[in-house]
């Protein structure tokens, strides 16, 4: 039996709400029963993942109800906060002011308007080509050549990570492989679920099989990441029916997504370390920063997007 679009949406939404409600309930129950501090930290990590999962359900519902433009607005805000955090971590000079003003107030809106309007030929090159040429010109105009290359590179990297890469997530929702017209938000949901679950499974598995902690993320172990990744891969294969892929294509796509998501986390950890991340005294509100929350999708979104375009959109 072929499900209609509406039926698929409600089925998936209902299933997810049920799943995460169970998870939230379970965590609340565990928190009440546990007095052990180590276990409580672990539950805290798990809890922040479950909150993120609820965000995904919410995103999906919004995308379904209001369309792709609303998704673009939400991800544009995410890019804004990520870039804001990147700038706060990066030493900047007064001479960089104009370049950063352009980055925040021009590049973010333009990139997301291009994504929402589906102008693929332009949004695929806008930041890596156009801005790559324009920003160095703007910054050279200021005549301040002290650490010029480092400053230009940091602005460009900030834009690539927090705007270009992140904007490929809502771009997934605009894709229309043959026979899958109008179901873009479902494909975005599939992508976000895999990234999110691979992270969540890895945290869960690391708590039980934590022999070798990762240097980039002490909350995860090598074994945990492997097991979590395999779990997310199985999940991605089992969910093939909500994608334009066959089951083995879904297996390969989710494997690529899991791998890119993990590598994204590794790269961002290195970036933060080389920026010499300061110990922010911001307390709980920013304990897991915006960039850290987005690390999974920064690298996985362009990979998933381009693999789909290359293999499935003629």
């Amino acid at each position: 039996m072929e499900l209609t679009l509406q039926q698929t949406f409600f089925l998936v939404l209902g299933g997810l709400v049920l799943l995460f409600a169970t998870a939230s309930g379970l965590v609340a129950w565990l928190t009440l029963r546990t007095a052990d501090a180590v276990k409580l930290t672990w539950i805290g990590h798990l809890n922040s993942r479950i909150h993120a999962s609820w965000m995904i359900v919410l995103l999906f519902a919004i995308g379904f109800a209001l369309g792709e433009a609303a998704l673009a607005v939400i991800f544009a805000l995410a890019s804004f906060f990520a870039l804001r955090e990147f700038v706060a971590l990066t030493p900047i000079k007064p001479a960089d002011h104009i370049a950063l003003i352009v980055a925040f107030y021009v590049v973010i809106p333009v990139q997301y308007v291009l994504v929402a309007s589906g102008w693929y030929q332009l949004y695929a090159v806008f930041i890596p080509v156009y801005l790559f040429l324009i920003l160095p010109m703007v910054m050279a105009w200021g005549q301040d050549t002290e650490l010029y290359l480092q400053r230009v590179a940091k602005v460009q990297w900030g834009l690539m990570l927090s705007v270009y890469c992140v904007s490929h997530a809502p771009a997934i929702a605009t894709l229309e492989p043959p026979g899958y017209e109008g179901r873009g938000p479902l494909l975005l949901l599939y992508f976000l679920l895999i990234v999110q679950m691979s992270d969540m499974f890895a945290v869960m598995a690391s708590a039980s099989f934590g022999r070798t902690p990762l240097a980039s993320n002490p909350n995860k172990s090598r074994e945990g990441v492997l097991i979590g990744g395999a779990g997310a891969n199985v999940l991605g294969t089992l969910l093939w029916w909500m994608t334009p892929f066959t089951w083995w294509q879904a297996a390969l796509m989710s494997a690529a997504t899991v791998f890119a998501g993990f590598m994204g986390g590794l790269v961002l950890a290195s970036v933060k370390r080389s920026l010499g991340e300061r110990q922010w005294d911001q307390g709980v509100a920013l304990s897991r920063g915006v960039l850290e929350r987005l690390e999974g999708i920064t690298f996985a979104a362009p990979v998933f997007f381009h693999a789909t375009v290359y293999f499935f959109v003629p």
Partner: protein
Amino acid sequence: MPIPFRFLPPIVWLVRLLVGAYPRWIGCAPSAVQRIYFANHTSHMDTVVLWAALPRELRANTRPVAAKDYWDRGGIRGHIARDELNVVMIDRARDDPNADPLEPLREALEHGFSLIIFPEGTRTPQPLPGPFRSGLYHLAMSFPAVELIPVYIENLHRSMPKGALLPVPTICTVRFGAPLARIEGETKESFVERARDAVVALAG
């Protein structure tokens, strides 16, 4: 009856969006006690940022002190200064050299308002503040019951260098220190120096 729920005023909402303005109560807790908050001054946004970092209940009763030549204008700037922040205007370019520039401040304190002042008198777009002027000393002596709270506004000089029209979004914190004690018989110079040191200590 108090209104149970109110949307944030647009100016506070905008400041949070652009520069965060996260309060850190290091040496004291938020309190309705009459206070003078004195802070480093790195950009035009300081006034709004410090005010926005206060809890809502305190904002209504706390008035920033700002230069008349900058804030007393028409348009949005004047609207923010008068209707949102309820700024106490201080006349830097006064016509009558004998008039006391602190008069509007004394008046606001007598009415029970808390004040936000920037004792440098002008913007110093650097991490550490320049020398303080003596206005704080005179107010501290005339109003011995008012708590003097040092405040350090971190990171904002990078967001809006002198001459810039728009701020670069970033994350800044507003750190509130312990109340500055008054010492019997202390000279003006030593008091002002101690006040500056209290702000600098929060920068570390």
